[in-house]
């Protein structure tokens, strides 16, 4: 059994090169999750967002099986799932039984692919629970490109996306292409899941993409301030997780989701709101 001892040399560990990749990844993940997480809650699509991570799992293990980068398989499967859910409309993303059934099936399929090769079996743990310390330079570049595209798209579609997320019926009557907005949101969500999964894995990604936004919504009174607040909360969770993981022999994913969940719980108790 590992002893949970304090590492006095944590600063040296934190300034190492693999750690700098993890810290930069934290920023890129926080920006993506903070911007899209707000819409996830406003659209009431949190369960669909959670499901996307699991739908991406067979893609990730399948990619390992074929010798491709994990993010590629994850991204393709999550995007496919996202477009399928988006095409069925906003109501469908709230159909919890259908979504949950697909989620379970996809997780099983992910296990099946993983068992077909020994290298995939080895990677299963890091796909499910993340390995933020092994993020590579090329992955960072991919994250940065995604973030740039995400911010440009959101800046252009911000108001119609917000209107259709809040009041779909009226937005539709006023001529907002609500179906297109649903597809756009789901596609962005698939990207965010793909970017955030390497940090905490498919099982814990909810705590990074949805929880900070839920906390931010309790603290703020406008969409933009919620997105900024949520980005900071997400970043605080990731960096705090990395710091504590350098000091103590805890897995980073565990500390990241613990901080995120603790912030949510404290804010919820303090503000006394029960909605989220």
């Amino acid at each position, binding site marked *: 059994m590992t002893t949970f001892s304090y590492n006095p040399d944590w600063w040296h560990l934190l300034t190492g090169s693999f750690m700098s990749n993890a810290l930069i990844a934290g920023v890129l993940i926080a920006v993506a999750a903070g911007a899209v997480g707000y819409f996830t809650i406003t659209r*009431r699509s949190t369960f669909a967002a959670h499901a996307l991570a699991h739908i991406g799992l067979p893609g990730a293990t399948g990619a390992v099986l074929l010798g491709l980068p994990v993010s590629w398989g994850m991204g393709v499967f999550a995007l496919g799932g996202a477009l399928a859910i988006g095409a069925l409309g906003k109501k469908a993303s709230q159909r919890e039984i259908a979504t949950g059934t697909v989620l379970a099936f996809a997780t099983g399929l992910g296990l099946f692919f993983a068992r077909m090769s020994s290298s995939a079996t080895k990677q299963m743990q890091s796909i499910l629970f993340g390995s933020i310390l092994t993020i590579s330079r090329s992955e960072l570049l991919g994250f940065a490109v995604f973030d740039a595209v995400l911010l440009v798209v959101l800046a252009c579609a911000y*108001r119609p996306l917000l*209107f259709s997320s809040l*009041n779909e019926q009226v937005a539709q*009557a006023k*001529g*907002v292409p609500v179906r297109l907005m649903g597809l756009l949101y789901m596609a962005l969500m698939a990207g965010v899941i793909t970017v955030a999964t390497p940090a905490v894995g498919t099982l814990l990604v909810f705590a990074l993409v949805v929880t900070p936004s839920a906390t931010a*919504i309790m603290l703020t*009174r406008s*969409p933009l301030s919620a997105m900024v607040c949520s980005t900071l909360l997400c970043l605080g969770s990731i960096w705090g997780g990395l710091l504590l993981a350098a000091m103590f022999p805890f897995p980073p994913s565990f500390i990241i989701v613990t901080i995120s969940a603790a912030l949510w719980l404290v804010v919820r108790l303090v503000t006394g709101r029960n909605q989220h």
Partner: protein
Amino acid sequence: MEKEAEPCIEFRQAAVQRGGRTIWSEGTFAIQRGTVTAIVGTNGAGKTTMIDVELGLLPLCHGSVTVLGRPAGQANGRIGYVPQNYMDDVDSNVTVDQSILLGITGTRFGFHRVTREQRGAVADIIDFVGLHGKERMRLNELSGGLRQRAAIAQALVSHPDLLLLDEPLANLDLASQSAIVELFARLNREWGMTIQIVSHDLNMLLPILTGAVYLLDGHPHYSGMSTVLDSQLLTHLYGTKVEVVTTPQGDMFVTPNPDMEPAGHGDGTLDASEAACFFKQHYAHSHPAGQQSQGATPSRATPQSAAATQPDTATQGSTQGSTQGFTQED
């Protein structure tokens, strides 16, 4: 601009289907500008469907519907629309002023700054609907009545020519209902706004209505208030006995409760001969051999005056708690 004589909404032989089933058909009527009309009918009669048709969200299978001089759906920028239970399930941190602002900017793609004119329009409408001081409240922090005003304000902020509302009084307490009805009256009077309201309970709206579209036997009809306030029509429309009584506050409908009525007053259900009699009187000319008249013995019509029955009914209606609703002062 449009000619004053041109109707605001015009149905011509309109019929609509959902999932292969005809919801209603042969709708031919016109609603003039500056009027307040109700859409009434029993559950499932197609009241919300009628709003969807007027917004062009649901295609007709026959006939045509013209709204504000254009085919339905083409003038939606000039229509304010408040769906049923609108904003009740908002699960976000959006505040009253941000929500109302979306009524102007919500359809625009691209990056835009909010202009001073837009902020001014939002502030004006907040004052008009009586939400002053509540601008920075979240929608989910408001009571149902105030949330309904915020919803109406979002529909009004772009200064539409027509306002469509689906059950705007449902789930509100009497004070909130009366405040919303007063708001409609001011809109109609001060802005000349044409308003159409889907409602299952007409009593609250009676003082401000010009007429009503009633969905009866699968067909929409329009008539002015004098015809609507006919207990035979109402009885037929609701499928249960309805009487019209006059109170000091105005006309109202009551549903007689057999347990409370004196003996011999009759029960609350509609018997076949009464239905047949009504049907013959009103529709025999346009719908030959209707199904209602089959097997029924046509008896003589019992004409009841539009606005009153015996005085004892009126007192019973208001004192014994069997009223269906509540009227407000005119």
